[in-house]
């Protein structure tokens, strides 16, 4: 064995060390650069979780952070698509259930009357969002509601307030707003009115 330090292995070792240190340093800088996660105080991971959801689990990537207005619009469009799927899934559940049900006459009559009474309220009248017509048809647990309005604004205002008024009677509901041939607006609701 030669007791003198060999030059080639020393140089090679130094290069390897420099490479590792350089890559590691670059990686660390990348994590603190623009776009990296840097939670502010109010965004910090909470220590007050209200349920037993795992505190540190890997989940699939979801929405990307939009950097520009165009990105945000694209994200919004993707979100609308996701929301439409959610609403469709909700409607299908209620529609399928409604179509498979027989009519519980006594319950259905009471529920239809209750739902109709809740279709108007002081606040609905205050903003002039009363329906032109209102029909509720209940079966065993799901009700189908049809209501017409003079305008889209009246229809949207009414639906917002109606879900609050009728919510205790009909906990889950799916609605669809369409335009009638005469220009008036129709709102169709499938609602779960019995658990």
């Amino acid at each position, binding site marked *: 064995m030669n007791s003198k330090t060999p030059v080639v292995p020393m140089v090679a070792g130094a290069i390897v060390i420099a490479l590792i240190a350089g890559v*590691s340093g670059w990686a660390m800088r990348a994590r603190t650069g623009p776009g990296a*996660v840097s939670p502010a105080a109010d965004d910090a991971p909470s220590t007050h979780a209200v349920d037993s959801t795992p505190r540190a689990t890997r989940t699939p990537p979801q929405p990307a952070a939009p950097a520009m207005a165009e990105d945000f619009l694209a994200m919004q469009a993707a979100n609308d698509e996701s929301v439409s799927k959610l609403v469709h899934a909700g409607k299908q559940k209620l529609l399928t259930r409604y179509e498979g049900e027989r009519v519980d006459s006594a319950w259905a009559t009471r529920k239809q009357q209750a739902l109709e009474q809740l279709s108007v309220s002081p606040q609905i009248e205050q903003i002039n969002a009363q329906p032109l017509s209102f029909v509720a048809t209940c079966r065993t647990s799901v009700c189908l509601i049809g209501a017409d309005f003079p305008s889209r604004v009246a229809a949207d205002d009414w639906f*917002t307030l109606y879900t609050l008024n009728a919510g205790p009677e009909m906990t889950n509901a799916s609605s*669809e707003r369409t335009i009638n041939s005469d220009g008036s607006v129709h709102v169709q609701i499938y609602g779960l009115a019995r658990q």
Partner: protein
Amino acid sequence: MNTMLKTGLLTVGLGIAFCPADAGAAVATHLRYSNAVNYCQAFTPGPSNTIRNRVIGSENIGTPIAVACNFHHVLNGAAGNTNPNQVQVFFTNGAAAAASVSCTLLTGTSGGISGTGVQYAVTKTVSVPASGGANVISWSTADNPTAGATDLGNIMVGVNCNLPTNMTISTTGVRWMADNGV
């Protein structure tokens, strides 16, 4: 050879020393609570609005009124960032009698002026004890009708509440998953 061995060990040691820089990174629960004043307002602002925005929350001093609340969500661009998976609305009852309050989580698209607008609503009701009693309404992934949903299916969630007389929405909360920034 001895020197090569030492150099190799030094390299491994340096590598290990740099590795822990990323070892704490994980996707964690994030919760944001706020005074409801920040995120809730009367559905119909104006002279008929009987909502009082106080530092302890938004109180309705008139007849029952609809209030709309939005929730502030944060996207950080890192893997594992989800839509909100839980929202909460907290109430305090300033009346002498217990009162029930109903809120609706509303998810949908407007469809514009002539398009088809679709919405899905989940309404919950709680009783709030009299004289300063408190209660909370909470929505979670179980309220998303999509099978196997892991969030509320919407980036920007919103809730409407029918606020009885002297009921205060004290706090709103929203939860989501995101990189912990380590």
